[in-house]
């Protein structure tokens, strides 16, 4: 399995090594190591950056992409995959590069605007056309007999956000300041929700397949960008997106891998992600742009929704990882039935 993974990474990297054009100007090649779902997004952003960079400096830049599960990709970079930038879907996968080998500077979040996350998405519901089960909010997902499709929180960032969104909703329901009761209620709530999960797919796309192709489940809980894509494009009008009363903000953080000699171009590449041009591409891919003007332009695509972050409601990723997802943590306790 391990070998397969390395082979895959190696072959993707090789495959994407495009021939560079011969000019007198400098040529730079960047490797963007990213998570699974961003493949299409960066395919559109990379040429835009290349032409921007050429116009600005006269230098050519080629950006190669490598995609895979977020944590797997971070693991590959630790093991020596020569990334120039990493673009992940949760900050623990960048923090680990700070901790192991110091590949990324500890202050990476402060080096770019918006905590170094050029876009966000949020966890929403996808239901079958017409919403036959009348699912409106998190509370409905714990109804006995309902089938909820969620990717495995142990192996998928998407699943982790779903779990945390449900937990945060439950805490809010009890009310702030009532911590002890809140924890107890949240635990019962999430237990009931996961008791309704008939299949735990490894990743977000797997869960999507189970829900849309296998016809299993009454509701798929997944990222807004995935749900929008299904409802509007590939789903053929068979599904509706439902926005719960409150959800979690899933920011996609980016960082430069410091040890490489390509800092200048790599930093410019990441800064470019925050420019109106790139933000526009981001919005077209159903991710919520940070730029208020761009967000306004696409407002019909992104209905306003109240969100909280892991930092402001759940005590940060480190705490969450330890209490919830570590072996023997709360997730393990509620799922073993």
């Amino acid at each position, binding site marked *: 399995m391990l070998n397969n993974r390395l082979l895959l990474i190696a072959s993707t990297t090789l495959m994407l090594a495009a021939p560079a054009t011969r000019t007198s100007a400098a040529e730079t090649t960047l490797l963007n190591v990213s998570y699974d779902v961003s493949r299409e997004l960066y395919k559109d952003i990379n040429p835009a950056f290349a032409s921007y960079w050429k116009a600005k400096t006269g230098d050519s830049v080629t950006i190669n992409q490598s995609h895979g599960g977020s*944590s797997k990709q971070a693991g590959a970079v630790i093991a020596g995959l020569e990334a120039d930038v990493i673009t992940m879907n949760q900050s623990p996968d960048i923090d680990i590069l700070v901790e192991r080998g110091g590949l990324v500077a500890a202050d990476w979040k402060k080096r770019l605007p918006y905590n170094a996350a050029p876009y966000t998405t949020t966890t929403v519901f996808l239901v079958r056309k017409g919403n036959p089960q009348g699912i409106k909010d998190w509370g409905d997902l714990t109804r006995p007999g309902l089938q909820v499709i969620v990717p495995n929180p142990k192996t998928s960032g998407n699943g982790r956000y779903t779990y945390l969104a449900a937990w945060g909703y439950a805490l809010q329901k009890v009310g702030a300041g009532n911590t002890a009761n809140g924890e107890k209620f949240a635990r019962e709530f999430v237990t009931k929700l996961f008791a309704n999960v008939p299949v735990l797919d490894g990743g977000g796309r797997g869960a999507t397949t189970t829900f849309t192709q296998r016809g299993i489940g009454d509701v798929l809980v997944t990222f807004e960008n995935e749900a929008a894509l299904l409802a509007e494009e590939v789903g053929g009008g068979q599904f509706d997106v439902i926005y719960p009363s409150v959800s979690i903000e899933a920011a996609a953080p980016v960082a430069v891998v410091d040890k490489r000699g390509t800092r200048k171009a790599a930093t410019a590449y990441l800064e470019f992600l925050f420019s109106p041009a790139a933000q526009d591409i981001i919005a077209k891919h159903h991710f919520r742009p940070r730029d208020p003007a761009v967000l306004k332009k696409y407002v019909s695509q992104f209905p306003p929704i109240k969100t909280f972050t892991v930092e402001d409601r759940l005590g940060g990723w480190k705490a969450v990882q330890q209490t919830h997802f570590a072996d023997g943590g709360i997730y393990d306790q509620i799922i073993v039935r």
Partner: protein
Amino acid sequence: MPTLSHLITRRHQVLPGFGLTLGFTLVYLSLIVLLPLSAVVFKTLSLSFAQFWEIVTAPRVVASYKLSFGASLLAAGINTVFGALLAWSLVRYRFPGRKLVDALVDLPFALPTAVAGIALTALYAGNGWLGKLLEPLGIKVAFTPLGVLVALVFIGLPFVVRTVQPILEDLELELEEAATCLGAHRWQIIRLVILPALTPALLTGFALAFARAVGEYGSVIFIAGNLPMVSEITPLMIITKLEQYDYTGATAIALVMLAVSFILLLVINSLQGWSAASSSSTGGRKS
């Protein structure tokens, strides 16, 4: 496993080059097999025994051993029976499309495992061709341990067919004819003439199919449903640990898998050696 004993007996024969071949065998095996495996052991050694024990005996992990080893043994057993039948008809009968069937047998080897997993899941899910027929009968295949078994049977099929086939081809028809002349019934021929000759190959096929099934991840992960305590396979537990950057935890479970697989393969191999020896010494007349 017979390499060492064979080579030692050969030293007294006319065949030269014992030192060279043994040296090469050991170096090659060390490089290709032992080196990566010792990395697993060394990584695990950073754990204290108590920590190691806690990781490898966690309830979810233990449930996954039961599923992984249980389903793999069962799948290898099923493949042994039906693989032998397949090999028999491929070798003994001439029929149109035989070459095609012969080539089909190897397909599970060549197919990327993820493709196999997706295809099987699509087939056996509640809305799939087979799932549609089976679910009204109360048989759920996809997203249950039964689905795991189906996937393992699929990927293990070629091993038994391909190990038994050449032996069957070499098996002389005259032996069976002689047995018939001596008054043996069909069942007696199968039991006393054919099976003893095939047993070593069947055991090898069983061992290969089993080994492949234990390590299988790609196809199973799609059809298993991956519910804790129910349909999580051991390789998934390892991947889960890796996702959390718990590399030592992952290698600890891997070490248990390795040890159990090694012991089982050792048992199967010695069974094979024993059956080969006994069938040749009694001239295939053991009952």
